[in-house]
């Protein structure tokens, strides 16, 4: 066998290998994996926003669905994995926005209370001097 025929044989082999790999991969695998990754990020963002303390029900739902999505991914049930990931993402986003609104509301309440006390003090100071 000369070098040329060797080269051709290798090319055909490589093409066959690529084809067989492509045949093995499901067309749903990539989007499902991406969806799970996005949901994973959403859960992490929610956790760093304080969701475990401020929106425990939502973040627990998100984590539970994430776990099941990962299990489905491992079982190559890509459709289920994607569906669960989408729901987990919705849960995680709700958890995050709930945590944020709880914090903002608390800050507004605290500031309004400060303002009330301050006004009271000013009124007292103004009425004391006479």
């Amino acid at each position, binding site marked *: 066998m000369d070098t040329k025929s060797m080269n051709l044989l290798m090319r055909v082999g490589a093409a066959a290998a690529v084809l067989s790999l492509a045949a093995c991969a499901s067309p749903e695998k990539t989007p499902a994996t991406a969806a799970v990754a996005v949901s994973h990020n959403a859960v992490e963002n929610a956790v760093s926003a304080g969701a475990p303390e401020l929106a425990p029900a939502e973040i627990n739902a998100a984590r539970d669905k994430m776990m099941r999505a990962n299990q489905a991914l491992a079982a190559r049930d890509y459709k289920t994995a994607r*569906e669960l990931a*989408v*729901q987990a993402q*919705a*849960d995680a*986003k*709700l958890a995050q*926005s*709930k945590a*944020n*609104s709880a*914090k*903002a*509301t608390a*800050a*507004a309440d605290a*500031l*309004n209370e*400060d*303002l009330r006390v*301050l*006004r009271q*003090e*000013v009124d007292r*100071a*103004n009425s004391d*001097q006479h």
Partner: protein
Amino acid sequence: MKLNFLKAIVLAATVALAACSTVPTTTPTLDEARADFVAANNNPQVATYAPMEFKQAGEALDRANQAAAKRGSLDTIDRLAYVAKQRIATAQEVAKSKAAEAEVANASRQRDRVQLEARTAEADRARRDASAAQAQAQDAQAQAAAAQQQAAQQADRASRLEALLVELHAQKTDRGMVVTIGDVLFATDRAELNANGMATVRKLAEIMMQNPDRTVMVEGFTDSTGSAAHNKDLSERRAASVAQALASLGVPRERIGMRGYGEAFPVASNDTASNRQLNRRVEIVLSNEGATIPPRAAQR
């Protein structure tokens, strides 16, 4: 048997009709999502603060509605409705959060304003207090100065009065200071004052002008020579002459009292010429400050 067959046909037709009926498919979750969507749509904060989130929630609900319209499996409808529901809730929470943040910003501004007002009021107060204290201090200073001036004037007047009274040989009595104008200051047996008499009266007038709270009682006396009527008349005329002289020097008449006692109240026995001369006199009683002159005690 035949009847049963008929029954079966009717039943089958009913089932077929039910399948064809256009009652839309729905699930409790989808119903909830729709109700939540209406509520969010009615919340003006959502439109203001979370338009993007609300739009995505609407799209999710559309997908669930489409699945329901296409008679998708209840499972699929539920799954899509659940996602829509969570997104609607997310839009509500985002709106709430942004509204709270706006409130924080607003409250901060208000707090700054109130603090500024408080500081301004405090500064105003301090300034008012300071100027009031300053005015008070100036007032006190002015009062002290005035008091000092008054005291100095009084001291001056007192020392001047004392000096004049010494010059006039005034004597202190219960009724006041008594200045005696002797016979030698009058023309003989007449009421007119001579130059020395006028000099004495001038000093008295000066005392009267400087001490507006004092009054005088001018009292005339004679010796026992001559008739009582003549003596009374002479004593009255001499007293009047002195009173007139004081008035002519500017002493108001209402501060001058006068009386002639004739030969009464002698200061010496009338047995020698020099003693009689002592009895011929005018006594001027100067009242104490602000006091009236008590009347002369009854004849001794």
